[in-house]
């Protein structure tokens, strides 16, 4: 055991769907049920429809038969789609909820960061909240005393330490909350999407803290949607899908597996089968693809041109058709809104099935996940609109030739620096990598 931090065996968690939606029942319902259901079952028995067990309401396995082992000092990521069971797993390991089956053993002091600022009370001052929040996270009073100054300094709120936090700006609040959490140093840290909140500087602080924790040999188990973060921080990653553990491998392979899986799934569920769309349906998209025309392995890299190709079926002649798309980042900010009407005028008349593609030269997208919304309209009539028709991942590339990838902001710039009027370039800077260009051909020919 000396080497193992977390051992999980056959862990499963079942939720009652009904119970999840209406989170509490009334006493009356329960009493009525308790009173009525024996009769109902007796009735069924008489009619010969007896089932062995009591009426089973609908249940879902949020986690099913998950087993793994984490060694001391490992930093492990958990990836998977929304509802795959990642958070349930962390909740069980942090003992917030109990598993239905299986067991887990944890060796060492556990801390969980499921949300920063948990237990903060707006009426209490910064000082009081540090103690309260620290105690809630599991810190001893002496430990908080010892780290108090450090926490205040880290949060940069010295002047307001005795002000009730309800008067804090949201930034100050967040900084203080994170400062407390960051100075909580358990042997095993469970982190759930904490990095998803706050601005870029804050996220960087979070990342830095995680890095320093891992360099201290702490064991970290983290959930994140941010795949590059997982790749950067974790040596190993676990992929969860529909409550099951489907991959447990190096973070690099896990991310690749996950992305491949998503792409395969997206290809498997045809766009035309999706019902999360609006529009009259005179034109219906049935396929959409985002491609990097300069990349050879099918991945999309920052710095390259991208093409979005949309295939559609036409059910009647549409004069003055307007095609468009949005590219949104993971925060839901629209990076581009591009329509044929705005960029080429209303000249399209569609009367056949077809395929339209849009190439964006140098979109300057930062590494990250993007969503594509596509739509078609005609003179105010919404023909078809799919909100998240597809997602794509932009991978980092050394676009400046300095080894540094642009990170903050919405898009990146291509700057030209001059010092005293004289252009300066990094010594040994390479020109942008030019890869073999590949024509993006329409998949519908």
């Amino acid at each position: 055991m000396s080497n193992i931090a977390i051992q999980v065996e056959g862990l499963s968690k079942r939720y009652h769907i009904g119970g999840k939606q209406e989170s509490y029942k009334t006493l009356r319902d329960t009493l009525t049920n308790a009173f009525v259901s024996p009769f109902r079952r007796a009735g069924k028995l008489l009619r010969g429809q007896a089932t062995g067990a009591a009426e089973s309401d609908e249940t879902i396995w949020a986690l099913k038969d998950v087993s793994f082992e984490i060694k001391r000092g490992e930093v492990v990521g958990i990836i998977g789609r929304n509802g795959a069971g990642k958070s349930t797993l962390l909740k069980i390991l942090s003992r917030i909820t109990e598993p239905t089956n299986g067991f887990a053993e944890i060796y060492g002091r556990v801390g969980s960061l499921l949300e920063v600022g948990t237990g903060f009370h707006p009426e209490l001052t910064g000082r009081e909240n540090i103690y309260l929040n620290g105690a809630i996270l599991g810190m001893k009073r002496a430990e908080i005393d010892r780290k108090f100054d450090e926490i205040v300094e880290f949060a940069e709120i010295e002047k307001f330490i005795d002000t009730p936090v309800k008067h804090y700006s949201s930034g100050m609040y967040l900084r203080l909350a994170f400062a407390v959490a960051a100075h909580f140093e358990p042997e095993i840290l469970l982190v759930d999407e904490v990095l998803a909140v706050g601005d870029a500087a804050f996220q960087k602080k979070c990342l830095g803290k995680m890095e320093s924790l891992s360099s201290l040999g702490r064991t970290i188990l983290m959930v994140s949607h941010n795949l590059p973060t997982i790749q950067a921080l974790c040596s190993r990653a676990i992929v969860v899908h529909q409550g099951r553990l489907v991959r447990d491998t190096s973070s690099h392979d896990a991310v690749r597996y996950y992305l491949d899986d998503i792409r395969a799934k997206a290809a498997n569920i045809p766009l035309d089968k999706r019902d999360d769309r609006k529009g009259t349906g005179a034109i219906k998209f049935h396929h959409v693809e985002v491609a990097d025309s300069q990349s050879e392995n099918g991945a999309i890299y920052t710095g390259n041109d991208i093409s979005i190709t949309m295939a559609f079926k036409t059910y009647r002649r549409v004069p003055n058709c307007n095609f468009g798309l949005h590219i949104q980042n993971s925060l839901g900010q629209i990076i581009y809104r591009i329509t044929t009407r705005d960029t080429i005028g209303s000249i399209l008349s569609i009367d056949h099935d077809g395929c339209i593609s849009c190439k964006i030269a140098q979109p300057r997208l930062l590494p990250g996940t993007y969503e594509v919304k596509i739509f078609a309209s005609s003179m105010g009539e919404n023909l078809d609109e799919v909100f998240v028709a597809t997602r794509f991942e932009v991978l980092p590339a050394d676009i400046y030739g300095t080894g540094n990838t642009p990170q903050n902001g919405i898009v990146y710039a291509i700057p030209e620096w001059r010092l005293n009027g004289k252009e300066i370039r990094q010594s040994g800077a390479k020109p942008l990598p030019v890869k073999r260009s590949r024509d993006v051909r329409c998949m519908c020919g």
Partner: protein
Amino acid sequence: MTYLTLSSSDQSKIVIKPSRGWVSLKLRELWEYRELLYFLTWRDIKVRYKQTVLGAAWAIIQPFLTMVIFSLFFGKLAKVPSDGIPYPIFSYAALVPWTFFANGLSQASNSLVASANLIKKVYFPRLAIPLATVFSGVVDFAFAFMVLIGMMLYFGAAPTSNVVWLPLLLLLAFVTSLGVSLWLSAMNVQFRDVRYTIPFLTQFWLFATPIAYPSSLLSEPWRTLYGLNPMVGVTEGFRWALLGTDTAPGPIIIVSSVMALLLLVSGAFYFRRMEKTFADVV
């Protein structure tokens, strides 16, 4: 070593597995979390006094006004007997522990639902939440008690040597309040109806307890049986200890203490049994 200690905890091990049926109370773990209990109590007290204009005055106004009303209607108009003691102090001596009990009960019963955010995000023994809420009522009790001392001086009621039992009588009120709160708070997570029954419950209980009248109205086997309501032991005990009512409530207090302990232990086990569903349901 437990997982809470900072020292190298090679020996510390947490086992997570589904629990079935009745589970242990894990009082040792609760003890490990005593600092959290302290901070939660302290938060409840701070917040209560920060958010109100009158602050600590509320702790006095509530029992004091009730005493005034009782004195007017029961004492003056209905001429309810008061064991030979001036009616105002007779009823106030019982109202002070009663208010502690009733406020603790109503606040603690809602405490789990009010702390839903904590319960869904962090692990700690959930018993700490209602426990801290009832604890925080001790401060209110202290304020109301000071007024009681003032009234005793005013009416010239000297306490007897029985006053040494007072802390234990307060403990009895505490145990009763906590016992009922454990049942109600755990039920309240599942059935929000509970919240609406609490005002009725405390009102009903108020009149089922000898606050406006003395228990000496009952003749003997019944008077002791009356102690099955633990608050009977508390209120009669307070009068006996402070005002020297000559009816030594010995048997009543024994019955009340047994009943209060039963409530506490059963409440704690019920609470622990329901605890695993809290985070999923609340």
